[in-house]
């Protein structure tokens, strides 16, 4: 299945940010914006909600902490009690470094795995390059075309009047 996109090409960051605001204010839905580098404040103007990944990180970390403590207490305190260095079986200070490491490990891996699942990123993932210049010196704003709904000349005018140096069309296999 192919999808048709209109690409507005910009060559200035500030013009782009203003254009995004105006295009959205005109009621047009922006599919994606491509930029060679991260732009400060673009999340806000695009209306992108804050990532919920930190919440995942917190709970994965919490799991790591409790898993590490449970593992060490059970292993060294109940399953195979041993006296090490004259300390009690359940010697909490000695467990802290392992607990810390497992907290970090679980939080980090949990975040990465969640990110892969949510974004459906996998080795067979096919990346659609809308315009190669977005990896060099141009900013690309992609707007999905809905057949029969989108007014092409009006969209063209809207993009150009907001500083687009080019307006292209592209079909992408989805």
């Amino acid at each position: 299945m192919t999808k048709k996109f209109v690409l507005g090409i910009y060559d200035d960051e500030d013009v782009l940010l203003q254009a995004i605001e105006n295009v959205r204010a005109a009621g047009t839905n922006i599919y994606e914006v491509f930029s060679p580098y991260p732009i400060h404040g673009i999340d806000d103007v695009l209306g992108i909600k804050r990532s919920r990944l930190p919440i995942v990180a917190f709970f994965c970390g919490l799991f790591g902490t409790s898993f590490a403590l449970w593992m060490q207490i059970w292993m060294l305190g109940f399953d195979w009690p041993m006296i090490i260095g004259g300390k009690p079986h359940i010697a909490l200070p000695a467990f802290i470094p392992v607990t810390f490491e497992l907290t970090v490990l679980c939080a980090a891996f949990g975040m990465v795995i969640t990110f892969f699942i949510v974004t459906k990123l996998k080795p067979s993932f096919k990346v659609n390059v809308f315009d190669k210049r977005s990896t060099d010196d141009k900013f690309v704003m992609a707007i999905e075309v809905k057949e029969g709904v989108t007014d092409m000349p009006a969209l063209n005018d809207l993009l150009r009047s907001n500083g687009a140096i080019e307006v292209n069309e592209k079909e992408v296999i989805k």
Partner: protein
Amino acid sequence: MTEERLIISRKTNNKFFLMIAIGVVLLIAGIIIAAMSGGHHAEGHGEAAAAGHEAAHWSKRLYMNLWLNNVYFTGIALVGVFFVAVQYVAYAGWSVLIKRIPEAMGYYLPIGGAVMLVTFLLGGHDIFHWTHDYLYNQFLEDGVTPNPQYDPIIAGKAPYLNFWFFLIRMIAYFVLWILFFNWLRRNSIGEDLHGGTNYYHKSIRISAMFLVVFGVTSSTSAWDWVLSIDTHWFSTMFGWYVFASWWVSGLSVIALTVIILKQNGYLKLVNANHIHDLGKFVFAFSIFWTYIWFSQFMLIWYANIPEESIYFIERLGGNGGHFKWIFFTNLLINFAFPFLVLMTRDAKRQMIMLKIVTIAILIGHWLDFYLMMMPGTMRTDAGIGFIEIGTTLIFLGIFLITFTKGLTKASLVPVNHPFLEESVHHHV
């Protein structure tokens, strides 16, 4: 960019003086109570009093409090200069708008130096066990009889821990710190008046030199002023530990001052992103302090070598468990509380949250220094009463007067700083 002058009203200044006055009243009340109960104490233990153990008890407590508060506030003042130096060397842009606040903290340093010197000269024997001459003589005056009070461990440290070298080091630290503070400050003010990038480049060179000086002196001053109280004990992490405590307290003072100024209508250009960065600093270095705390604790706990573990025994079960509650409160306020409260992004960007946490940290690290100093000197006689609260209020008042006076001396916005524009548009 326009200048922004801080005006400290007479009313605010009077509040600071009132703080000092209340402190003095509390201190005198505390001394009277301590002197009276001390006399009573001596009657009950006639022998101990005769041996001179209980004599002048309140003065020892007073000297310890002067020392504790002065080390604490001097550290905070020093961290102000250190913060500015780090920002310069790192070519940091975000901190330009708040730079005048840490800069003004250094104005306390001369007072800190004077109080430190006087307290050491008057109360050195009460604070530092190693200052007693009898510890160093292997034999009594006849040259034959072994001296029962001879302490070979302390005598072995004499090349470093002796009165004159200690005094010279103390003076050298303050001379160096004040010199660098004045140098940086002069350049900063000069930049305001004349502009140009010369001042900026010069400040980077001064800062780089200061960082080298600070790297050495922050460690050695921690050994001198805090570690040598427990003369027999040593810890290779101690310099870092005191630095971590100073640093997070200093960062809390910076964050708290920025918030208070902002809530009073100053620092209009400072936005949530600057507050967020300060919040991250406070959050991160609370964890850093805990990391250092735990590294020191765990190695000593695991090895369990008597001469090392005595330090923690004195603070936990020893001294009749006198310091146990402070030991755990210390960890709770300085680690658990900031860690859990400041974890989310929103908490770091909200002024009210950050305000609560920084105040808690400031109290917590005062307790941290209390825990470093009191068990080795006051033992079970240590307490937190009128003398402690009074002395702290006096120091706080003096610190606030010098600090705010320093803040009024220049524009709160460094108008000609080359990175000012970057700081105004700071975004995280």
